[in-house]
């Protein structure tokens, strides 16, 4: 099955390092051959001693030869380890980089399909399995092959029939290891899965520690964690039951072979068919066979695991984004005043049944456009689609007059400054977080952006000012500070389109005012889309769009909507009238 995967992912690296690999395997085979000769020396010595024909000098000679060979083995072993295992690490790096390079190109549906946990697992477990198979796996395979062939050859040379008897139990070992390690693999996969879910569980619990404490969930969560833990213990015991069989089994079968040699070989010596030296050498060769036999089962398992993992990695790096990203012969020039046109646009999240955007028709260009609508009416979804995070069908969305599916992603995105509804901060300095889109920005520019987002004062008040580390997900900042930081980030980029998805919801009225006034000044002539539930903010925009169930319910100016839209009227009634501030009206 997975030959195309092998070819695609592995072959280039194998080809690139073919000399290295060739040298490594040559060293490996040489090691095997040298090691096989050492028992010959021992046999020589023992035979000589039996017949009393050997002299002390002869013995010294033999010992010297053994030492010499052992010395060569040391050098050669180092060589193959460095060359072959080193190669597997090189391969690992290449694939790891390839996975990352692929992931950064993927779209939002991809990240719904693969969670952070999945992707982390792919890049550690699966990569590890491939590395093992291509490193130790290959070594063990070649080593086992050479060693067993040679050892068997030598044994046959001594006595074919005895060889057959001694080898009788070996196939059992190979077969049972194969079967057992297949089982082991399955059980081990379960263990890993459970390990991952324990990790995920503890991670998500610790991240939401505030919630856990405020809602006194400590014991409740500990119990749930305990359930996962007990499952994990059980699966580990199931693994141990097999692991506990494999290695003693190998010893058992090896010893069985030895038993055969002891019994039948002993008789042969008694009958003077073979010499005692032969007998001892035979035992030595048999010892040599135990490991390759075990290795065969192990390697088969390793290779199978490696292939499975390789398959998963292959699926990952060949998964296509649903966002078309055409390469145009002539890169289009940046647009000065781009506008969007939406024609009966529809969109549904793969995990939900109802469309989040439903037959939406709308067009907008330079100017400030307010978007409002009830919770879940599709405002954020619309913003994400406009920012090209989610795909749309052909002929539904046009950017600067061209169907977005005909335009390179980076081209569209380079036009957009985006402020999400939930600010995303990286654990870095405040300055670096603001300069995310423009790493080359000078400190002055960063400060100017911060001033425009009305966050400068707050930053200066922090201990290390712009060089303060934000802490994980910005925990050391207040909600409104985080939002304005995200805004400063978008303002710094100063792009022709600005999308603000409710990015001022946690900001007080005065600050909101200040920021918005700044926006109006700086973004004159640019296309600004701003989602908000605050009538005050909306009333200052050029035009307001009201969404309901993923479609435009109504649009127009503040005055128009006040006349005709009941949703807008009730918003107004609640938020803008003095009366309302005094006494609650019954809904």
């Amino acid at each position: 099955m997975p030959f195309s995967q092998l070819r695609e992912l592995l072959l280039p690296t194998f080809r690139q390092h073919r000399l290295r690999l060739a040298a490594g395997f040559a060293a490996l085979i040489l090691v095997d051959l040298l090691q096989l000769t050492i028992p010959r020396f021992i046999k020589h010595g023992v035979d000589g001693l039996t017949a009393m024909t050997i002299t002390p000098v002869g013995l010294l000679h033999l010992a010297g030869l053994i030492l010499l060979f052992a010395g060569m083995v040391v050098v050669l072993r180092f060589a193959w380890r460095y060359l072959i295992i080193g190669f597997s690490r090189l391969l690992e790096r290449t694939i790891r980089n390839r996975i990352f390079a692929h992931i950064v190109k993927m779209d939002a549906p991809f990240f719904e399909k693969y969670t952070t946990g999945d992707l982390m697992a792919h890049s550690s477990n699966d990569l590890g399995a491939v590395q093992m198979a291509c490193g130790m796996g290959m070594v063990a395979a070649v080593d086992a092959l050479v060693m067993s062939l040679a050892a068997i050859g030598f044994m046959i040379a001594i006595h074919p029939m005895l060889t057959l008897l001694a080898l009788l139990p070996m196939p059992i070992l190979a077969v049972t290891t194969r079967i057992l390690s297949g089982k082991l693999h399955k059980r081990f996969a379960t263990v890993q899965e459970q390990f991952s879910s324990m990790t995920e569980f503890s991670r998500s619990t610790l991240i939401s520690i505030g919630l856990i404490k405020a809602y006194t969930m400590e014991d409740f969560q500990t119990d749930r964690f305990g359930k996962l833990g007990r499952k994990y213990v059980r699966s580990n015991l199931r693994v141990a039951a097999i692991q506990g069989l494999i290695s003693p089994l190998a010893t058992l079968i090896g010893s069985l072979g030895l038993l055969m040699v002891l019994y039948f070989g002993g008789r042969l010596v008694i009958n003077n068919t073979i010499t005692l030296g032969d007998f001892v050498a035979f035992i030595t060769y048999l010892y040599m066979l135990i490991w390759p036999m075990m290795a065969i089962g192990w390697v088969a398992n390793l290779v199978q695991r490696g292939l499975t993992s390789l398959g998963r990695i292959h699926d990952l790096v060949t998964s296509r984004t649903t966002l078309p990203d055409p390469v145009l012969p002539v890169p289009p020039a940046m647009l000065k005043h781009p506008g969007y046109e939406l024609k009966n646009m529809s969109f549904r999240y793969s995990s939900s049944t109802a469309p989040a955007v439903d037959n939406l028709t709308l067009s907008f260009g330079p100017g400030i456009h307010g978007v409002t609508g009830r919770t879940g009416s599709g405002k954020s979804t619309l913003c994400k689609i406009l920012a090209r995070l989610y795909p749309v069908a052909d002929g539904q969305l046009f950017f600067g007059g061209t169907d977005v599916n005909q335009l390179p992603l980076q081209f569209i995105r380079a036009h957009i400054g985006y402020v999400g509804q939930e600010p995303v901060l990286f654990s870095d300095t405040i300055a670096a977080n603001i300069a995310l889109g423009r790493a080359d920005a000078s400190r002055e520019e960063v400060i100017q952006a911060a001033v425009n987002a009305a966050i400068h004062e707050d930053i200066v008040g922090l201990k290390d000012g712009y060089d303060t580390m934000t802490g994980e997900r910005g925990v050391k900042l207040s909600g409104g500070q985080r939002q304005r930081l995200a805004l400063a980030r978008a303002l710094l980029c100063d792009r022709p389109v600005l999308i603000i998805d409710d990015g001022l919801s946690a900001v007080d009225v005065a600050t909101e005012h200040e920021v918005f006034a700044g926006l109006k000044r700086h973004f004159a002539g640019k296309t600004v889309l701003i989602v908000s539930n605050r009538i005050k903010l909306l009333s200052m925009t050029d035009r307001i769009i009201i969404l309901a169930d993923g479609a435009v319910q109504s649009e127009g100016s503040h005055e128009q909507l006040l006349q005709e839209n009941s949703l807008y009227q009730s918003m107004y009634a609640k938020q803008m009238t003095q009366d309302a501030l005094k006494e609650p009206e019954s809904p």
Partner: protein
Amino acid sequence: MMNYGYSEKGQEGSLSDFHLWRKILQFSAPYWLSLFFAVIISILITWATLTLPHLVQTAIDHYITATTVATDARIAGLTRTAIHYGVLIFAIFFASFCQVLVLEWVGQSVMHTVRQRLFHHLLHLDLPFFNSNPTGRLVTRLTNDIQNMNEMFTSVIVTLFNDLLQLTGILVLLFWMNPRLAGVMTIFIPLAIIITIFFARLAREQFRAIRIQLAKINSFLAENLSGMSIIQLFGRQESNRQTFEHLSEGFLQRTLSQIKLFGTFMPLTEFMSSAAIALILWYGGGEVLQKRLTLGELVAFISYMRLFFQPLRELAQKYSVVQSAMASAERIFQLLDTKSEIVELEQPVQLPKIQGSLLFKNIHFGYQADNPILHDVSLALYPGQTVALVGTTGSGKTTLVNLLLRFYDPQAGTIRIDDTDIACLELRKLRTIVGVILQDVFILQDTLFANIVMDTGCSREKTEAILNQTGMNRFVDKLPAGLDTIIGEGGLELSTGEKQLLSFARVLCRNPAILVLDEATAAIDTESENILEQAIADSFKGRTSLVIAHRLSTIRRADHIVVMAHGKIVEQGSHEELLQRNGHYALLVAMDLQNDQSSHAAHGNEVVDS
């Protein structure tokens, strides 16, 4: 396996740390019988393993080469030895299997206990601890470090014990067989020990370097994955890819130098083994020639030598595993010894019936002692009063909530509920009295139902009633599996407003005596807000509530309004009072309502008309 860890600095974990061993023993004490059993098995296995070459030797000396004895007797003797041999190898097989199982069971059970203890302990630590310890590091403690420690129980204790036993057994045997030859062989022991210790020291450094680099890769990856859309929107793919490749290259270099180290060490022990055999052949062969050693003994010596080096090599390898396990154990126990700064009284005060008065008195607080956030904040809420808290962002509103929940303790001042200092209450009790909707909404990876009910054990019917009451049924009905839909990462994502609605349902389920809403409706539309206000008014009639909000419309229901700026309370009073005072609040209202007044009046009428 997953590892979100960051750097693993500091602790070395040494074998001779008795303090650590004692703790480990404490945890394993309940399993002493099983451990004792494992030790007995271990001794049996060693004895049997060492008897095998002896049997071969007997066979060679007494039967195979005993040319003076009758052939039949030789063969009969050989058969007997063979049977003996066969029985032993099966016994070894079964005993080893039992040993693995028993030790795995003990190890896993002990680790489970440690893990549970640690998890429970972590959840009860205070928030400053979580602010200074990245989640990734804590997760690593809970998972990878404990896994590491387990390694010690299963493979290490077995091998350590078996190997040491075997080594001693072999040495004794060798000396018993031929003291002179054995004496010569002992020179390999100090040699092996020196090499091993030297190697272990180097290996430890390299293991650490590798682990740190891997942790860096993983945390970089995790952060990039969770912020991918922002990375793409701001065009950071290329530069982040380069950073990643740089990290990846660093990892490669570290693994390569580890390979070099292992490539040097592993063949060296093999070399020693061959050297020992050469020595035996030369020296022992000489002894045989001088009839001071039998041939069978020489052969046995050669086999024992092989047996001798195998555990020596394993010991050397396991040494670094043990070290890393000890380092893990040390980190775990250190964490278990971390004390929370938020402590409960030994004998907490019991509040029988909550009236619901709440008092903040002269509170001074800063997250870092040298950076004060709240300055002398005093605030009183009478039972049943609704107080609104407004103020510029970053003025310390959420901080006040954090103090009320005792996530932190103020540096000066007290907070009282019904005249009882909250520091005298049981934390659990306090947090049941005070129900809050936090500004940051967190979703547990579970069903919607579990996310609403949390630990209250609220029934399905009641939950559904709450959903109807809050107007949430509108969106729950749209979900593929209704209340049983899995939400959060890896499940269905909710919109921000929907998550806030969910928080309302949560707090309604708990029915607390004091209600605190921190920006709870910031992302909720007006109609939903109206419904919610009604629901809250119905369910929390006559209860104390503290409402933090920026939207003035949300504040209007409050009996009393408190305005904060820069960590101080600058104004308080009723809406009318504050308007009359013409201060901060009046300015805010003016700003919010300032529309050209003419059209405002006109529209106002229209709204009333329609």
